[in-house]
């Protein structure tokens, strides 16, 4: 699932899943699946300035549009008599998409030993990344690109590059993998992933990665370090470092892929301020380059059921190796949230965007550049 609830929620989820259950004396019981997930319905108003590859304006757009981003999750776990907890998560996209079930994995966890995850999910560097806070309309691998609040130029590849994301995937988008997350000691937690083959969705069980040197990125490794600590009265510091690498097929490029990321978030009472950065390098299949960088910075304030925030992210990616120009994307979000009730948030905000594609990628009917301002409001329901 695309990140939609920001850094704090990500870390809280991870911390909760790593929590020990030493006092639980239940006998082992079969896993009972529960239905959870999230449902978002949006109203987006914008009238972008769109140009095609020939500098013309042939596009008509819906000034007021209706968007969505929803998932139904099947989850369950059981505590074995050995003290080990075993469980699973299957995430079904709640609208028809090409990758209908994007994440599907099982986990084993115990308090002293940490957690193992096996299956199709994000890597440790992605899951443990700290990013800038938002008021509710997220922009770091977030809502705006996720719901296609504005058209993106041809060749943009969202979270697989640094064009709109500082957490690292580099085309490892829910590939089948093995991950380990340590317990947290003195505020520190480490995570490691091994990814045999980079394959979006991870649905293909085929072991053949390459034919005549052409095929998939292989032997991926991700490592991450995450730190959270109370640094003063009512002041918490979250820090993350991430690293991801993979071997590029020799017939697809000469430079293996790798990336680094870092993030910091300071929470002082109701005020949050944070930033993150990512740098990526390497050749990907289909003539693409992952060379690029991204950074975000943001500030948010929460009082009772209300939250406001201002966030900016810039992403740059090399895109096609055949085109010397680069892809650029700038996004700003000034947004707020009103918590209507448990699991129900009303979010709304203004946003600005400026996306510029490569020179020779977009055709006559494709977007080459996109810029403008807009308004987005949505109901975010978690269940």
């Amino acid at each position: 699932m695309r990140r939609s609830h920001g850094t704090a929620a990500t870390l809280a989820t991870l911390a909760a899943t790593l929590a020990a259950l030493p006092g639980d004396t239940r006998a082992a019981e079969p896993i009972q699946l529960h239905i959870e997930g999230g449902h978002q319905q949006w109203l987006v108003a914008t009238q972008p300035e769109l140009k095609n590859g020939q500098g013309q304006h042939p596009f008509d757009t819906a000034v007021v549009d209706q968007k969505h981003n929803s998932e139904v999750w099947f989850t369950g776990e059981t505590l074995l008599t050995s003290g080990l907890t075993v469980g699973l998560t299957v995430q079904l996209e709640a609208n028809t998409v090409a990758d209908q079930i994007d994440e599907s994995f099982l986990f084993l966890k115990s308090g002293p030993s940490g957690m193992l995850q096996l299956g199709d999910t994000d890597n440790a560097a992605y899951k443990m990344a700290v990013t800038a806070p938002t008021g509710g309309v997220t922009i770091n691998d977030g809502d705006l690109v996720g719901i296609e609040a504005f058209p993106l130029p041809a060749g943009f590849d969202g979270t697989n590059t640094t064009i709109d994301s500082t957490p690292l995937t580099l085309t490892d988008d829910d590939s089948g993998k093995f991950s380990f997350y340590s317990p947290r000691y003195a505020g520190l937690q480490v995570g490691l992933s091994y990814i045999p083959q980079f394959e979006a969705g991870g649905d293909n069980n085929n072991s053949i990665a390459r034919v005549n040197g052409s095929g998939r990125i292989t032997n991926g490794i991700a490592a991450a370090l995450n730190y959270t600590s109370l640094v003063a009265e009512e002041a918490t510091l979250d820090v993350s470092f991430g690293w991801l690498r993979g071997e590029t097929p020799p017939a697809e490029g000469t430079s293996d892929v790798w990336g680094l990321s870092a993030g910091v978030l300071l929470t002082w009472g109701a005020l949050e301020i944070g930033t993150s950065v990512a740098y990526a390098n390497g050749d990907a299949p289909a003539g693409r380059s992952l060379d690029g960088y991204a950074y975000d910075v943001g500030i948010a304030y929460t009082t009772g059921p209300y939250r406001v925030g201002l966030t900016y992210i810039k992403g740059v990616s090399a895109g096609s190796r055949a085109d010397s120009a680069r892809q650029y994307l700038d996004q700003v979000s000034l947004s707020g949230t009103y918590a209507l009730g448990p699991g129900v948030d009303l979010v709304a905000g203004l946003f600005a965007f400026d996306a510029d594609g490569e020179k020779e990628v977009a055709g006559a009917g494709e977007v080459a550049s996109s810029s403008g301002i807009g308004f987005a409001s949505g109901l975010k329901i978690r269940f």
Partner: protein
Amino acid sequence: MKKLLYGTTALATAGLLFGAAGEAKAADRLELGVHGYMQQWMVLNDIGLTNVEDGAGKHPFDWAAVDQKHNSEVCFTGSYKYDNQVTIGVDVQLEANTSGDQIDESYLWISTEGFGKVIIGDENNAAYLMQVTAPTGGLSHNQGVLTSLPNQGFVIAPQGFAFDDTTMGGTLLRFDDNDSGKFTYISPRFAGFQIGASYWPNFEAGGDNNNSVQRVAGATGPGTTGNINGAALGINYKEKFGDVGVEASLGGMYGDTPPVAGSNDLYAGSAGLLLTFGGFEVGGSYTQAQGDRSATQQYDGYSYDVGVAYTTGPYKVGLAYQRGKNEGNPDNSSEQHADYLILSGTYTMGPGVRIIAGLYAADLDGEDGAAAANQVKEFSAIGGGAGITLSF
């Protein structure tokens, strides 16, 4: 649906068919629950003697020495017993990874204790459901993890192999009836015997197409992917003689081949036997098939498996062997061959939670000329696999 992979026989599935009949229901109508299974595997492809050769006799392939594979489903099931003692249930099976056939099995069933059970919808046929096969230690061979995980099993398939739809994947009677929409009757068990029969108008993987057009000028129409007028008959026997348990099955299957595929209709027959004594299980099964699958492939071939397993407490170990042969292309005098040998074990960690690990040896050989350069002609290897399986 791929056959559940840690059951020793398809009878386990047949047993489930009647399992819900006695359930008490608090609600006054049918309510669905969420069940299913998840398997996550680590597959070792490079333990020894691994050879993947293309049709030109070269080796252009790179494969993941340690790979991660899966096989999972989320099933929506429920049943309700009415005052007249008729129980009605539904079963909808969602593949838990993105799949071309996202919902493979989707059917309803009606049963009474005295009359038996009627199944209507997209489900395997009666001969398949009632078939007895060889036991395993946990890594399954007969349309199991070795060949039949989604997209690809542990082994790498040579060009032209259609594992589960020919005798190359095992002895179970599928032969392109992969959850076609059908009508099935399964009797109650009398004196250890149970019979089942299925009729399905169109052979169609997934059964999702409601189109009735079967033929267009003798060629396959949009309502089917090949054969039509399918029928299957299964007989199953289960009894205990002292400490010895006996399970046996006989099955037959028919399909009307489209004229463009050839003049020989599909006929297939199978038999299986499983003996249990204390913690031991020993068994085997055999299937023979003939008919034209397409203009370039026949069903003609055979498959058999044998196996022995031993269970003590939460532990199970087993050794199984399977061989398959298929004539392949009628214009090609060579054949497809597949041999598998598996030594594996299972540790049951808790209710529905198992760790399975084992070694396998496999030798798969496609027809001469079927694979071009950069297409797999032969695969042979000693490999291994370990996984965690959950059922819920």
